[in-house]
């Protein structure tokens, strides 16, 4: 497996050297980072070049990195407070519609689109991560003309994350309700949602109202620096460098 990845990485270096922003290897998988401006060109090369031959786009996935590394319970120092009192509200599961979760201050762009490619001809896979340059209005060129399977996946990423795909033939919401407001998979969208629907016997119709259920996430989000994985992480960073 690793020789195959070596060959693929070398091939990518050769064909699209100028467009590569970064190339990482972990868990026997290759991740390529390119900029949004280069994406279409890179995609065409990846599909048409016979040595690369990525004939199938398997998956497109939006990611919101705004809460990356956020925890609710400190693990490195001990406190005099008990478990539940020590928990800070920090993730979407603990908030309801009239509160806004704290937005983390990150230097990196907030949204990314991750593509998974598969070559049936050569039996290898590749992951491409592209960050959206603008956090307020995330946009990405559409890959529908290169791989038709991108169509619904891009609609899904638009629906759930609000990422606009320029050049998409039919960019409508796909999974959420007709007339839905907001993008539910963003990290500042509460887990319980904003509105609920019920039948109102007085008005004799179905109405929307603010949610009445309370957030009920029981386990705090915790990051523990585990010594068993520290060595691996150090090795990986040195291998990248």
């Amino acid at each position, binding site marked *: 497996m690793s020789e195959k990845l070596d060959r693929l990485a070398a091939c990518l270096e050769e064909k699209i050297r100028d467009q590569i922003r970064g190339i990482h290897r*972990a*868990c026997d*998988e290759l*991740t390529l980072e390119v900029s949004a401006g280069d994406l279409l060109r890179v995609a065409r090369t990846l599909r048409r070049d016979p040595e690369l031959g990525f*004939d*199938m*786009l*398997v*998956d497109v*996935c939006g*990611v*919101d990195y705004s*809460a*990356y*590394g956020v*925890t609710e319970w400190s693990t490195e120092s001990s406190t005099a407070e008990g478990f539940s009192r020590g928990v800070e509200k920090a*993730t*979407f*599961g603990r908030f309801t519609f009239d509160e806004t979760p704290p937005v983390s201050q990150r230097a990196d762009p907030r949204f990314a689109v*991750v593509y*998974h490619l598969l070559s*049936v001809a050569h*039996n290898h*896979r590749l*992951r491409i991560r592209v960050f959206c340059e603008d956090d307020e209005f995330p946009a990405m060129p559409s890959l529908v003309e290169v*791989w*038709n*399977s991108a*169509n*619904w*996946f891009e609609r*899904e990423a638009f629906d759930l994350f609000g990422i606009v795909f320029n050049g998409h033939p039919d960019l409508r*919401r*796909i*999974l*959420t*309700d007709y007339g839905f407001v907001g993008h*539910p*998979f963003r990290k500042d969208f509460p*887990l319980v949602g904003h509105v609920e629907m019920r039948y109102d016997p007085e008005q004799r119709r179905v109405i929307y109202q603010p949610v009445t259920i309370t957030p009920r*996430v029981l*386990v*705090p*989000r*915790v*990051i*523990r*620096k*585990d010594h*068993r*994985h520290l060595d*691996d*992480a150090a090795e990986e960073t040195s291998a990248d460098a």
Partner: protein
Amino acid sequence: MPEIRNYTLNFGPQHPAAHGVLRLVLEMDGEVVQRADPHIGLLHRGTEKLAESKPYNQSIGYMDRLDYMSMMVNEHGYVKAIERLMGIEPPLRAQYIRVMFDEITRILNHLLWLGTHALDVGAMTMFLYCFREREDLIDCYEAVSGSRMHATYYRPGGVNRDLPGTMPQYQTSRWKSPADVKRLNENRSGSLLDFIEDFTNRFPTHVDEYEILLTDNRIWKQRTVGIGVVSPERALQMGLTGPMLRGSGVAWDLRKKQPYAVYDRMDFDIPVGVNGDSYDRYLVRVEEMRQSNRIIRQCVDWLKANPGPVMLDDHKVAPPPREEMKADMESLIHHFKLYTEGYCVPEGEVYSAVEHPKGEFAVYLISDGANKPYRVKVRPPGFVHLSALDEMSRGHMLADVVTLIGSLDIVFGEIDR
């Protein structure tokens, strides 16, 4: 002369042939479909978002409810993602059990598909035949996990518990006489493995029965041959996987090409279609059932000969046994931490794909080092297949749309997530 216009037809969301909650807006020219616009999401439950708010193990049950016709294969994809990120490998016996249940699940899925697909096209008997065999396999689910459908049986590091030594028995009741019960319990007297072995002996004959009813049936062929033809190039371009891709003649099966668990030790063949129409996809799936039967048989033989652990002996991931927990302080702490906080998965990302009965099912997992996943993306095969319906149904008659929906083998739990 009056103006002739296309009209739109609403198919579903509550239609028996829509296989769940599919709303299909069809633009018709007479009885010919010009455009099909599936409206999905009526079963959207936000599984991925829910999984981000829970420790890893608590989401295994959600995976069952994605494609609720092939429960354990979904679990396999999710559990494998966690295992790869943590760098652990389950014991060999657990991997054999997983492969065996993956294949049992494949037969379960294909039986349901065959029964309902034939029912949609007009063959009532198939439905009854298929559900007869499904019953036995669902009993295997019940014996191993206590649940007939949503098993939650696979765990990171192995499976929840070893295969049971006894099968659940039928009891005498107002509806079942002692003679009936004796006959029904005949193949249930031994262990679960004996029961499955008995099933694998019987099953090929049953598949022959299905084929006698359908394969050369004139009506069945009239309804399926030449319907929804997909060329291999278009199949790749539209992202079709699994039997949909193999029906078009591309020999692509993750169990062979990128083997996981112990599939590389199994002896089986990949059936491939020629014309890429609904009939070829039917033949591919029926042959897959026979091949799954072969794999199950190999697993049964191995499992009978090789007892051993089915879960990792690492209490950072797997809970310690109950007895140990009562006597040993360390085990009690491990148990408490696992069930109140879960385990932290090292930072990284992984894309773990399995050959699902419907196609390539994958879980893309991003971890930032916490006890909950940062992002879980499920790659549902049915979602992609349904997006190809528009192209496949153009120019066909309205009744063929029903054949096509059946031929796609879609389940809304995974499409809407």
